[in-house]
């Protein structure tokens, strides 16, 4: 596989780019593997990559029912941050952010990480106190976070509406300078290419229809491309974790809901941070192409249809106009939905399933993209050593019966 470098770019330019090999090879499944990863999104590919790179496991397959990066990895709003309230989340998400910081070099693939800063706004006195508490807690975990006054926010975002005559005036906020955005497709493609280079079989258009189970142990999967055997199967799916768990004969504390996002027509560059507001409820950033990328909360009902209700989009736009009245004539170019698997405490499930040899990394809800490399790293450790990585241990399925929940609803800097 050709390394991406300035030298190779020059050489290929000389022969009109005719010699680039495919970034990863899409394989036909073999009959058995050491580890099967179900789900070829960012988290699944990252798991396979770290299994091969860190744990030197050689026979790994990633089964993807559609195509690489076609699910929620390519549907999110690309925000990366680690300003979480609770210790367990802060440690996991900041570990992931640190991996992101070296990821382009590690993968030899430019993921276009832009640490432009993530600002959270406060619109009420209570929210301001909450933000102060959160900033203190985050700093105690060694993660950068600062309080901003309205004037300081204006410095970052000159067109923001600071009027105190609006329904939800801006009283202040916080910023995580290391937060930002990355190109989501590139994260999937980069992990796929790097994993493929280490010998991982990436098998697209391969849907898992059932599991081979005897005596409470999983021995492989039944797919639309035949039976594939393995004594370790990792379930790394979003949107359909509950459906796959049902095929394996157990339930998960997960409900699947649509989460919508949209992009506007392209504008000249006018703000270079990520802005989030839990009160008027929108999060937005400007892409390299000038489009505003916006997201908000999930729809309230369960769904598997990848589209939600229009009033959610309307509320998201109304919120944006509250913050930026100048956007009132902005046109929307595209809107879409993805199905997110939400746990009751808005934290993921990483670790063992009720079946032996079947491991879970799912339920990432509305915020999985920022965790992609960290999630893959700790899950690869969990599968390879058959015991949870220290950072993953609090996120076990057992927490729902032990009561040790990691309640990030509202605590995670934005409502879910």
């Amino acid at each position, binding site marked *: 596989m050709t390394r991406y470098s300035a030298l190779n770019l020059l050489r290929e330019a000389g022969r009109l780019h005719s010699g680039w090999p495919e970034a990863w090879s899409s394989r036909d499944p073999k009959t058995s593997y050491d580890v099967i990863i179900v789900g070829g999104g960012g988290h699944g590919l990252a798991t396979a990559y770290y299994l091969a790179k860190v744990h030197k496991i050689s026979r790994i397959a990633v089964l993807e029912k559609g195509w690489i990066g076609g699910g929620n990895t390519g549907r999110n709003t690309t925000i990366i941050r680690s300003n979480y309230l609770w210790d367990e989340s802060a440690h996991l998400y900041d570990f992931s952010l640190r991996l992101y910081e070296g990821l382009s070099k590690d993968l030899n693939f430019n993921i276009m990480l832009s640490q432009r800063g993530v600002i959270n706004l406060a619109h009420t006195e209570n929210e301001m106190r909450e933000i102060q508490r959160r900033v203190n807690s985050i700093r105690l975990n060694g993660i950068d976070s600062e309080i901003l006054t309205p004037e300081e926010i204006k410095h970052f975002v000159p067109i923001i509406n600071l009027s105190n005559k609006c329904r939800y005036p801006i009283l202040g906020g916080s910023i995580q300078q290391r937060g930002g955005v990355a190109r989501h497709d590139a994260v999937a493609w980069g992990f796929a290419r790097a994993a493929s280079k280490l010998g991982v079989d990436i098998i697209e258009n391969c849907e898992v229809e059932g599991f081979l189970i005897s005596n409470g142990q999983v021995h492989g999967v039944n797919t639309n491309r035949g039976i594939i055997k393995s004594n370790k199967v990792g379930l790394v799916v979003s949107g*359909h974790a*509950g*459906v796959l768990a049902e095929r394996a004969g157990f*339930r*998960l*504390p*997960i*409900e*699947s809901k649509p989460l919508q996002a949209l992009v506007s027509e392209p504008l000249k560059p006018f703000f270079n941070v990520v802005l989030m507001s839990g009160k008027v409820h929108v999060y937005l950033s400007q892409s390299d192409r000038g489009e505003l990328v916006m997201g908000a909360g999930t729809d*309230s*009902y*369960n*769904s*598997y*249809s990848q589209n939600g*209700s*229009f*009033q959610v989009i309307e509320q998201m736009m109304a919120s944006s106009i509250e913050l930026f009245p100048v956007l009132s004539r902005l046109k929307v170019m595209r809107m879409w939905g993805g199905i997110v698997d939400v746990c*009751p405490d808005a934290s993921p499930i990483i670790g063992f399933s009720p079946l032996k040899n079947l491991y879970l990394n799912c339920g990432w809800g509305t915020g999985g993209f920022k965790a992609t490399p960290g999630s893959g790293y700790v899950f690869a450790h969990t599968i390879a050593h058959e015991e949870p990585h220290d950072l993953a241990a609090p996120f076990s399925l057992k927490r*729902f*019966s*032990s*009561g040790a929940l990691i309640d990030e609803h509202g605590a995670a800097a934005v409502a879910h």
Partner: protein
Amino acid sequence: MLLIPCPWCGLRAESEFSSGGEANISRPYVNNDLSDNDWADYLFYRKNPKGWHQEQWHHVKGCRRWFNVERHTVTHEIRKSWPMNSSSDSND
């Protein structure tokens, strides 16, 4: 936006309602025999079917009454709605 048939008010826009999740959940009798797993099942485990789903809705900006709905989670089609504790509750 969904059009939801309130049993008392007829078809109304989804924005008048709030979703209450899975229908027909009954609180287990709490005594020493109730295991942590059973309690977790009641608190946190919900049906999440890809297909027909019985769920509860609250007409919060209308008559303010709760009722049950059977809705398809892929097509969003609603095939019936009925007041809680009525005979339709036994339908599966």
